[in-house]
């Protein structure tokens, strides 16, 4: 998906030229994350390039262009650089880079699409070759400086663990001693990256302790909500209860008279109270009397939305062809053995543990932002519009993110903080309540798929036709308007690119127009579409009278790399060898540049589901850090359990019915069964692991449930289909 997540942009510049530009910025220093180096630069430290500086005490300071939202990127990103430089990993410090519209910060854009964002599971896949070059360039500059100092040819020198060594004279020189000279060396035009065999920090099954964890267990890690700025005041927000609602009238007399209240600020479809302390703002918010004007969708309810899906699916209007190979429709029409089924995934909310928040100080010429964001450039663009300044005048200081899952790609909450800060003339920290966080979410929409297959005499499909009805999920972050009647490339993921060999295939997509804001959410289109295709594959296997694993083996006969993942997962899970009374389900996906197969093992206890084990095998091409890779898959499995078992947003009176974790249910600790995770490294290119983990859980679990009960579940979440786990007390 080349068009994803990228507003209009200037043409890409030469990477190595921009290294030099970035270096200037590093030496100059900036507020926030770079103070460390700026102070040190005066003492003799030097920036080698935009990403790499060496402090006077020998510490290597590495810029992380990506946001740390739990996926461990602040460790892995830095480790890739450190490995290529030949730095001493125990003496590396990671800082979060500035936002890429800031002066000299262009090198922090994702090099694939020239836009800085963290998402789409692509931090590693898009940055890996680039970071290796950055590190190699720094290493070659350090070696060139050492060659001058030692009076020997560069070819006789090697860099190792923070030093440059000359073997024959048994001399070595620390990076700190040659940093300034190295920074003055010309930037190599074609830096030579190390062969993989010489990776010393990442890869080769290594497990790297994450650098952010000690602060996180001490309660010392700074998330957006923890920011303290001198003179800061606090804002709480009440948005229109109905989606798209606007303010008709506000009576704020009682609120404005409350202790500590500084100002009541009108926002777009919301009212904020700014007070000296946060709870004062919350108390005053409760005293506001607001008349709301309903949104364009009016008081729609869930049944009306569902009816729109059904009407679109059954009608002729709005369809666009997303994929075609052979003549699936013709073969299906001529076939006497057609299987069809319809699947439905619900509306869901992001609901990261840290509610949306931002701290903004508006200055004479721009603004400073401290916020947990996935889209730093999006923040710059949005605040530039709000404050009528250039994007480069918006300084974004990135904090840790208490989860993101796609929600923090947007900057609507930052804009609210900026409007409040401008209104009161002081830095404002704005925090949404959990109810606001869910009510002002941009939801992942429900997906409705109708799948048809024609089976040949051998029981395998000769034609496959998928029809998908779903609103766009790409629109809020797309560079171009996503027009109705066209294809949203993210929404059809997993349908147009499933790995099975079927000679005739076709996918049609109908972009439903709904009065509800929609957005990417962890697993984008893959999650709902894999639930459909991999449940359906089991249904076909059942009709054909074949074992679901063996059936998939045949369908993957032309794709040995994917087949290897399937086989490894089946072997690791003990497919077909589960204890008596245990049942297994399997599903597989190719997505985010990786492959994943999962096997769920469960039993039924008194009519309730007891999960025993979930086995995951992924092939991301290369595993750079095994511990973190396992964490991504384990966490993904639990995310998958939430969406399979519990999570759903329904709408009543034009508003979401679920606005906190009492009704917006997510998986809790007893839900997590034994998790077994392993990796293959057969794929030719490196892929992502952050988004893929949940993808196969819904289908694998429902396939196991079918094996156990003979009942096929085609709608999620299961709690609303009357399926309970032994941990019970699940309600719809």
């Amino acid at each position, binding site marked *: 998906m080349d068009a994803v997540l990228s507003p209009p942009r200037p043409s890409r510049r030469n990477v190595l030229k921009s290294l030099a530009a970035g270096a200037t910025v590093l030496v100059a220093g900036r507020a926030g994350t770079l103070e460390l180096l700026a102070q040190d630069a005066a003492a003799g430290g030097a920036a080698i390039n935009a990403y790499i500086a060496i402090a006077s005490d020998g510490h290597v300071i590495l810029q992380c262009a990506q946001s740390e939202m739990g996926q461990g990127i602040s460790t892995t990103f830095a480790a890739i650089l450190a490995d290529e430089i030949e730095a001493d990993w125990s003496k590396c410090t990671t800082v979060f880079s500035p936002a890429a519209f800031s002066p000299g910060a262009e090198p922090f854009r994702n090099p694939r699409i020239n836009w800085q964002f963290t998402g789409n599971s692509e931090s590693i896949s898009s940055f890996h070759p680039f970071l290796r070059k950055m590190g190699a360039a720094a290493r070659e500059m350090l070696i060139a400086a050492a060659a001058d100092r030692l009076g020997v040819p560069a070819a006789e020198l090697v860099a190792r663990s923070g030093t440059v060594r000359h073997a024959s004279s048994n001399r070595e020189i620390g990076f700190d001693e040659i940093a300034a000279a190295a920074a003055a060396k010309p930037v190599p035009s074609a830096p030579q990256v190390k062969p993989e065999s010489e990776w010393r920090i990442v890869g080769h099954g290594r497990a790297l302790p994450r650098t952010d964890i000690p602060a996180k*267990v*001490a309660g010392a890690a700074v998330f957006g909500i923890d920011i303290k700025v001198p003179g800061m005041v606090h804002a709480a927000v009440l948005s229109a209860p109905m989606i798209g609602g606007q303010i008709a009238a506000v009576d704020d007399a009682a609120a404005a008279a409350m202790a500590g209240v500084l100002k009541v600020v009108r926002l777009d479809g919301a009212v904020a109270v700014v007070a000296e302390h946060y709870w004062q703002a919350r108390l005053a918010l409760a005293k506001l009397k607001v008349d709301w004007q309903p949104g364009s969708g009016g008081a729609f309810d869930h049944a009306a939305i569902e009816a729109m899906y059904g009407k679109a699916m059954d009608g002729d209007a709005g369809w666009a062809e997303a994929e075609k190979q052979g003549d699936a429709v013709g073969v299906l029409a001529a076939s006497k053995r057609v299987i069809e089924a319809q699947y439905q995934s619900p509306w869901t909310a992001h609901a990261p*543990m840290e509610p949306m928040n931002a701290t903004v100080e508006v200055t004479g010429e721009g603004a400073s932002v401290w916020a947990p964001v996935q889209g730093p450039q999006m923040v710059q663009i949005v605040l530039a519009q709000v404050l009528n300044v250039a994007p480069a005048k918006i300084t974004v200081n990135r904090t840790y993110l208490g989860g993101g899952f796609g929600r923090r790609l947007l900057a609507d909450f930052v804009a609210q903080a900026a409007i409040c800060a401008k209104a009161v003339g002081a830095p404002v920290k704005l925090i949404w309540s959990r109810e606001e966080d869910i009510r002002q979410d941009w939801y992942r929409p429900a997906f409705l798929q109708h799948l048809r297959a024609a089976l040949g005499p051998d029981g395998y499909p000769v034609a496959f036709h998928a029809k998908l009805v779903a609103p766009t999920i790409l629109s809020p972050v797309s560079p171009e308007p996503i027009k109705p009647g066209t294809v949203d490339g993210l929404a059809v993921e997993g349908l147009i690119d499933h790995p099975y060999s079927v000679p005739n295939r076709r996918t049609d997509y109908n972009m439903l127009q709904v009065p509800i804001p929609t957005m990417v959410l962890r697993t984008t289109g893959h999650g709902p579409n894999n639930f459909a295709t991999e449940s359906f594959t089991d249904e076909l296997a059942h009709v054909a009278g074949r074992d679901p694993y063996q059936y998939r083996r045949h369908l993957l006969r032309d794709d040995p790399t994917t087949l290897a993942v399937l086989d490894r997962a089946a072997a690791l899970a003990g497919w077909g060898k589960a204890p008596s009374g245990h049942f297994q389900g399997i599903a597989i996906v190719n997505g985010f540049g990786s492959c994943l197969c999962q096997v769920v093992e469960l039993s039924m206890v008194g009519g309730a589901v007891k999960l025993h084990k979930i086995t995951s095998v992924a092939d991301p091409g290369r595993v750079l850090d095994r511990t973190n890779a396992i*964490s991504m898959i384990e966490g993904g*499995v*639990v995310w998958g359990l939430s969406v399979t078992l519990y999570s759903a947003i329904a709408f009543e009176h034009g508003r979401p019915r679920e606005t906190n974790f009492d009704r917006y249910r997510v*998986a*809790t600790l*007893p839900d997590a069964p034994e998790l077994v995770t392993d990796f293959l490294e057969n794929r030719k290119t490196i892929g992502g692991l952050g988004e893929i983990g949940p993808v196969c859980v819904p289908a694998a679990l429902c396939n196991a449930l079918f094996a156990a009960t003979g009942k096929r579940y085609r709608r999620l979440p299961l709690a609303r289909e009357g399926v309970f786990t032994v941990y019970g007390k699940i309600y719809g």
Partner: protein
Amino acid sequence: MAKFNFTLNGAPAEVDVDPSTPLLWVLRDHLGLTGTKFGCGAALCGACTVHVNGGAVRSCAYTIDSVQGATVTTIEGLSKDGASRIQQAWIEHQVPQCGYCQPGMIMAAAALLAAKPKPSLADIEASITNICRCGTYARIKQAIFAAAGTGR
């Protein structure tokens, strides 16, 4: 507004706030201890878990007027330098992902281990009801067993 006195992480603390102010916001906003997190405001997720008189409470729904004269421990006071056996187990098992819920998880686990030094899996499942959206539950279980000395 009213004055409230209590013991916070071993030292006396005094605040002058509205009596309905949740302990969470007193800690975060008035006393500058931001290790305790806001997640739901309704005692549903446990991100705000602290100890009051040794027991785990959800401080987002625990008003300051209930804390008068009490002893409060937050993640910052659990150990001097994050070196408690529970926090060490959390590091050893690489539990946190985003980490936002983990101070509350650790405080809940500390209260469990204080009450039951060798908890069973059923004990853990019954008492650790906090929410983690990153899904670190499997490692949380391992880390609690490790901290209890019953690691497997």
